[in-house]
């Protein structure tokens, strides 16, 4: 494709194709979009983040990441669609325009690029990073068990061969550390949305403990609004609640960390599948998935805008 209008949003893409998409989007919208490189992956790939900003300094920000688990292809595919949606709708959709007039949006499309590349080249079912674990023949760390909050808890594994291996230490994964460093240096993120697939859920803190977070009532009510908006398009049913109570104890997860960093509106999404395809959601479902998810994201972003803290 020579422009992001030609990009095929209805199909899955390789890492290089997604990277080219990002560069084109920046080139076409230089006043709205820029690309930040927040670090390098374990294998040395750039960790690219799209920044959508209408100007101003020290604006509050909204973080969205997709593709932290490599095999969840629907998430970067949806993220790519979100990116195009933002540039298309800014100035046309009053709600999005109002959000971007106050907030910057940061979108990391391929949070685990080594893993994503590996799913294309070698093993479509790969989930983790590609770290070599000393003393083990098993490769990789689960980047959603590597965050400092609750790190090492029962909802993660110390076994490098496990799919939920927490890694040798908190933030050992450069893919995680880069986001931590970026978030801390930014210092003013107000929402943190991390997108997974595939069990149709919206999860808020905590995952490591059954104890409710201080803002549980508000987060629960907002999840209801967001999931209602999502369902309104194609009838996709979502459940929501704290990670611990809704699925299982998960320790060292993104959402807990972000919340404990002071980012109140902290959610994990689990995008659709209704029991037919799992991680192999057919490409013709990319756009419907992205469209319905966008409605939920908008509800959370608008709420964040309207409820400063």
């Amino acid at each position, binding site marked *: 494709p020579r422009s992001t209008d030609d990009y095929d949003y209805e*199909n899955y*893409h390789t890492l290089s194709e997604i990277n080219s998409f990002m560069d084109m989007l920046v080139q076409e919208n230089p006043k709205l979009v820029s690309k930040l490189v927040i670090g390098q992956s374990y294998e040395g790939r750039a960790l690219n983040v799209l920044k959508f900003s209408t100007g101003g300094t020290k604006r509050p920000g909204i973080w969205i990441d997709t593709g932290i688990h490599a095999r969840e292809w629907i998430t970067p595919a949806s993220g790519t669609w979100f990116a195009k949606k933002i540039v298309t709708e800014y100035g046309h959709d009053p709600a999005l325009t109002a959000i971007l007039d106050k907030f910057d949006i940061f979108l990391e499309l391929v949070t685990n690029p080594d893993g994503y590349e590996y799913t294309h080249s070698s*093993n479509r*079912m790969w989930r983790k990073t590609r770290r070599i674990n000393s003393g083990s023949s098993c490769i990789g760390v689960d980047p959603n068990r590597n965050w400092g909050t609750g790190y090492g808890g029962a909802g993660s594994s110390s076994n490098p061969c496990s799919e939920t291996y927490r890694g040798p230490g908190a933030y050992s994964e450069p893919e995680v550390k880069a986001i931590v460093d970026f978030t801390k240096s930014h210092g003013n993120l107000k929402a943190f949305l991390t997108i997974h697939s595939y069990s149709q859920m919206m999860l808020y803190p905590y995952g490591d403990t059954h104890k409710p977070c201080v803002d549980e009532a508000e987060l629960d009510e907002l999840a209801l609004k967001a999931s209602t908006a999502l369902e309104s398009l194609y009838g996709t049913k979502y459940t929501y609640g704290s990670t611990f109570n809704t699925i*299982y104890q998960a320790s060292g997860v993104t959402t807990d960390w972000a919340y404990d960093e002071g980012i109140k509106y902290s959610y994990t999404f689990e995008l659709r599948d209704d*029991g*037919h395809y799992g*991680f192999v959601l057919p*490409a013709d479902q990319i756009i419907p998935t992205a469209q319905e998810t966008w409605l939920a994201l908008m509800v959370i972003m608008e709420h964040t805008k309207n409820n400063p803290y």
Partner: protein
Amino acid sequence: KERFEGHQVLRITAKNDAEIGLLKELSKQEDLGLDFWTDPVDQSLPVDIRVPFHSLQGVRAFLGYHEIHYEIMIQDLQDLLDKEQREMMRARVLQ
């Protein structure tokens, strides 16, 4: 490139805590090479497991013996992945 011929994904619906416990036991049997797409947690949540071809018979026997209900969610994972690849290739050609 790793292939997944004959791998099936089973969707298991546990009807009580005892069955959840049995599925947790199953997940500890590393020699089976099972990939839990969703974990055994609660009866309200289905458990999806990618089962390699070499373990299918054993896993089905285990489920049958304990009368744990399951359905085949993906008959042959490689078929689905081949289709996915074909679609990607076709899209590139069209482009």
